[in-house]
């Protein structure tokens, strides 16, 4: 098992490295090839050639790509200096560079935004998982019944309504009409857990609506399959109560595909639930990356992209390991 986990992790590192190369090429090589000098972007609206030269030097844009990539990689692990001749700044590890716009280290922006995104995605995941899976199970058990049909309709509505619609509607209701939560904003969990949850609740609901339908349908289909399996009949033949038959014997194997999708979804959510963050005005990774793209802030865009990739890849590794835990047949000997 240890060997298996280590093997997966090594694989993940290799993929991450490939992603970093890809990102580097995408953000630094391609623009240049297309005639967009990143230094011009950095230097402001109407830069004079001297500034551009300084910036070019500071960012090392005059050096070879291999050299630039190497500095970038060193920066991530041990930190690096940025030196424009006139000023010299130290960027500690993990260094993803400085924002073109506000000169803040990219990493500190990510660190600030991460708790917001994490609270949002994990909270929503708990919500859509519990509701999605349990209603999926119920639909499968009462297939064709009233609950099944209602759940199907609700989940269809859930996926088809866009977040900015449901989000704004909910915001309007709770904040302006009913005044349940005035001025929805992010409160750190460490500062006030109750307020943290209370303020995030509308966003959780909106985000969950989007995902819940998928999990409901997936669970339903998966449960219908396992309920027809011979081993479920065996469980009944033993005289187990129906509760155990469904909750243990049928649900456990049904969770396998759900774990897969959850891993992928969580990875993507951690990259930033862009629309939801925007709608509720949370400054999570999604909001940061949108701003960065809009303002052509290359280091931030690249930093957030790499960070998101890191989460997607880690989520996949966790899914693989979870597989092996859940299903002994996949487990290596």
């Amino acid at each position, binding site marked *: 098992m240890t060997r298996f986990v280590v093997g997966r992790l090594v694989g993940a590192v290799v993929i991450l490295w490939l992603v970093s190369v890809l990102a580097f090429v995408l953000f630094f090589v391609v623009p240049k090839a297309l005639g967009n000098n990143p230094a011009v972007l950095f230097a402001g609206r109407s830069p004079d050639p001297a500034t551009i030269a300084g910036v070019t030097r500071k960012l090392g844009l005059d050096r070879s790509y291999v050299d630039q990539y190497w500095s970038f990689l060193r920066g991530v692990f041990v930190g690096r200096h940025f030196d424009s001749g006139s000023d010299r700044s130290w960027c500690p590890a993990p260094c993803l560079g400085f924002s073109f716009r506000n000169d803040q280290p990219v990493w500190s922006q990510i660190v600030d935004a991460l708790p917001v995104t994490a609270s949002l995605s994990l909270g929503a995941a708990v919500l859509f998982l519990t509701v999605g899976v349990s209603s999926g199970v119920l639909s499968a058990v009462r297939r064709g019944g009233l609950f099944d049909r209602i759940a199907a309709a609700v989940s269809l509505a859930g996926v088809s309504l866009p977040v900015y619609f449901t989000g704004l509607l909910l915001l309007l209701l709770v904040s302006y009409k009913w005044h349940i939560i005035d001025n929805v904003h992010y409160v750190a969990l460490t500062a006030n857990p109750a307020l943290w949850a209370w303020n995030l609740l509308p966003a959780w609901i909106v985000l969950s609506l989007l995902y819940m339908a998928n999990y409901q349908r997936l669970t339903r289909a998966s449960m219908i399959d396992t309920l027809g399996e011979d081993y479920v009949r065996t469980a009944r033949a033993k005289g187990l109560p129906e509760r155990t038959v469904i909750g243990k014997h049928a649900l456990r194997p049904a969770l396998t595909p759900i774990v897969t999708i959850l891993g992928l979804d969580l990875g993507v959510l951690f990259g930033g639930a862009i629309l939801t963050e925007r709608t509720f005005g949370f400054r999570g990774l999604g909001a940061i990356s949108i701003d960065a793209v809009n303002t052509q802030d290359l280091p931030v865009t690249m930093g957030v992209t790499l960070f998101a990739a890191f989460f997607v890849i880690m989520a996949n590794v966790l899914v693989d390991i979870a597989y092996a835990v859940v299903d002994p*047949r*996949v487990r*290596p*000997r």
Partner: protein
Amino acid sequence: MTDNHPTTEDRPAATDDRPVATDDRPVATDDRPVAIDDRPVAVDELVRVDRLTKVFPAGQGTFGRRRGAGAGVRAVDGISFSIARGATLGLVGESGSGKSTTGRLLSRLLDPTAGTVTFDGRDITRLPSRQLRPLRRDIQMIFQDPYSSLNPRHTIGAIIAAPLRVQGLASDSGQAMRARVRELLELVGLNPEHYNRYPHEFSGGQRQRVGIARALATRPKLVIADEPVSALDVSIRAQIINLLDDLRAELGLTYLFIAHDLSMVRHLSDTVAVMYLGQIVEIADRTTLFEHSLHPYTHALLSAVPIPDPASTRQRDRIRLHGDVPSPRNPPSACRFHPRCWKAQDICRTEAPPLADRSPAGSLGSSPAGLADTAPTEPRGPSPTGRPDTPPPGPPDTTPAGRPGTSATGSPGGPPRHQVACHFPEERTVI
């Protein structure tokens, strides 16, 4: 495995040192397909398999993940036999003994690791894939599952015509092709009007008939039937078995018949080979095999088959094997049957018994039991597992009869000989 005596020579030429068969052998009680007249070389062989081996590489675990390196699976391990034109060889043995793999090697659906396959006088072992197409015309397979082996989206007519198209045996447009398909439908006992129906409209037995019609479309010489009736109902089985029997007579087909059901094999085969963990442990004409078998494994296998007659089945000599077939990944040393054999002695664990000739008692002037005493006990090959890639070439077998051995079934000039791979062969009545 053919000749089992270690020598310093390398691989011998495939067949040229084979002895000319003589007809001084006693004629077994049942030899339907063989000699039509009395000339010494009467029957030509359609298939000859020599030290055929297939090793599946290790590390093909579930989900394509590599498992720790291992020796690989020796699914078929140096088997030799031949099938005379028009004859049927039955292949029996427990699950995993390598029966299907043998069938797929013969039809070149799998590439052999070692050994040779000669078909109709031609060595087809290393035919490049380009030249396989004409071969596919001559060798066809019938599979066990009549449900998954027919494409549900094609009509019966299209399914049966497919091999004709692939082989370019009939023009697409055609009247000729349609006529041929109708003819085939009729041949296998289906209504020619069913041409445009789909597989799901047919019962299991009818689907198996479609599978047979498809196999016969190219007028093959050899048909490999891998458990063709296992998935069918009792009453339908008999219909299909009769059909296979009739077709053999009508079209002069040669069969390799693979089945779990030993009584069915007895009914349909001329010669029967018993496989255990990739090797042939006993091979003989059907009467000898079912009534005078010598190998303990054959006895165990036969004694396990229930007979639909309560009076006799409950009074039989019961042999119960303990445990299951060991993994072919890691087969037991020397005689592979020794961990389950009640007659095993020390020698069985150290020396692999050669597949030696045990001709019927009368011809040798001694009883089969007597033969056991003088049985040669040379190991099969230089290594305990009898690795076939270093094949010991053939000085003649030194069986008591002194007759050279060519591990042959229905070999030229006479009925198949009785060959057993056991240090202590002994007759035992188990049926």
